[in-house]
């Protein structure tokens, strides 16, 4: 029996083990990815230029000129969005700490409904801009809620898709803000 034949017989035992390991690692990583969360193309890009009108009765809207100079949290929300309701207390609590400027983009909403929503749940936002969907596209928004962290230079540094939880705020948002303020 030649060495080649020996090797081939060894391969029969080793190859399935190797293939299995590769598949196991592939599935472990692949199934751990939340396919609902798409990576943003705008990370480390300057925030889009925009100018949004205020909700009725508001003095000022929200525009890209508000962003530079400090770290900001930009939250895209709507009164018709149930998960937004779930995340709202988290934003209220964060606003109370005055740790970061929170801006709101009210996405494809009826102004009256948005005002009633704010009146009912509280207003964590320094400024709110009403968006018919166009500015949302510039931010790469594909649903609500979405939350962005923008650095002092006005660059988008992080995007969170879906409702924020207390865990997200403590583990990700606050450490990131601290890092960006350094």
């Amino acid at each position, binding site marked *: 029996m030649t060495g080649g034949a020996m090797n081939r017989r060894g391969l029969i035992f080793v190859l399935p083990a190797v293939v299995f390991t590769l598949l196991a690692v592939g599935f472990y990583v692949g199934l751990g990815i939340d396919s609902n969360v798409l990576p943003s193309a705008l990370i480390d890009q300057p925030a889009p230029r925009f100018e949004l009108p205020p909700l009725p009765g508001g003095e000022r809207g929200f525009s890209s000129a508000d962003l530079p100079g400090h770290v900001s949290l930009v939250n895209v929300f709507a009164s*018709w*969005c149930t998960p937004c309701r779930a995340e709202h207390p988290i934003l209220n609590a964060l606003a109370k700490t005055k740790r970061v400027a929170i801006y709101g983009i009210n996405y*494809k909403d009826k102004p009256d409904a948005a005002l009633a929503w704010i009146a009912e749940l509280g207003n964590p936002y320094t400024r709110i801009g009403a968006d018919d*969907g166009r500015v949302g596209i510039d931010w*790469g928004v*594909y*649903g*609500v*809620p979405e939350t962005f962290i923008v650095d002092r230079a006005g660059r988008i540094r992080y995007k969170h898709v879906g*409702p924020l939880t207390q865990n997200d705020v403590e583990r990700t948002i606050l450490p990131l803000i601290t890092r960006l303020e350094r």
Partner: protein
Amino acid sequence: MTDCHCEEPLGRRSNLDRQSSTGARLLPPGTARKGRPSGGRNDSIRLAAGVVMLLLATTSPAQAVRPDEMLADPGLEARAREVGRELRCLVCRNQSIDDSDADLAHDLRVLVRERIKAGDSDDRVIAYVRARYGDFVLLRPPFELGTLLLWGGPLLLLVIGGAALARFYRSRREAAVAPLSPDERRRLASILGEGSEN
């Protein structure tokens, strides 16, 4: 109403509804009720079902493009359709923005038409959307370094498979042409000799 990250909001017309309504319209009124009591009832039902299936099979998939979105210039509208077919609806994922009823898809269709009307080339319109939503928005992944394995993978597998196959056949041929030893030749001759005697 619009696109929520957690659940499909109520009241949005899904594509399924749209398709079934198209299907229903294909049936002339009263078709289902006709010929019910007769003896060949099963046959006629089967025939009607077959006709309906055939008609459904030949209809094109539902387009979500609404008349009020369309451009007046048919040439520009045709280009907008071309572009729309290339862009993924990020809410439904496996539909193009032309096929999707999602609000975001509607907004993107309007945006595509605006850019085209403003004189952008098709590639520039696609680049505009890609800059905001990333590669995922492209239904056809671009050919570049990051997608090399995606595009080259099948070819790589073909090469590996071909090489393995070639090796297998070569080793079989080599085994076949191994010459007989003198001893084997003698035995073969004696066997053949026995055979001819019988």
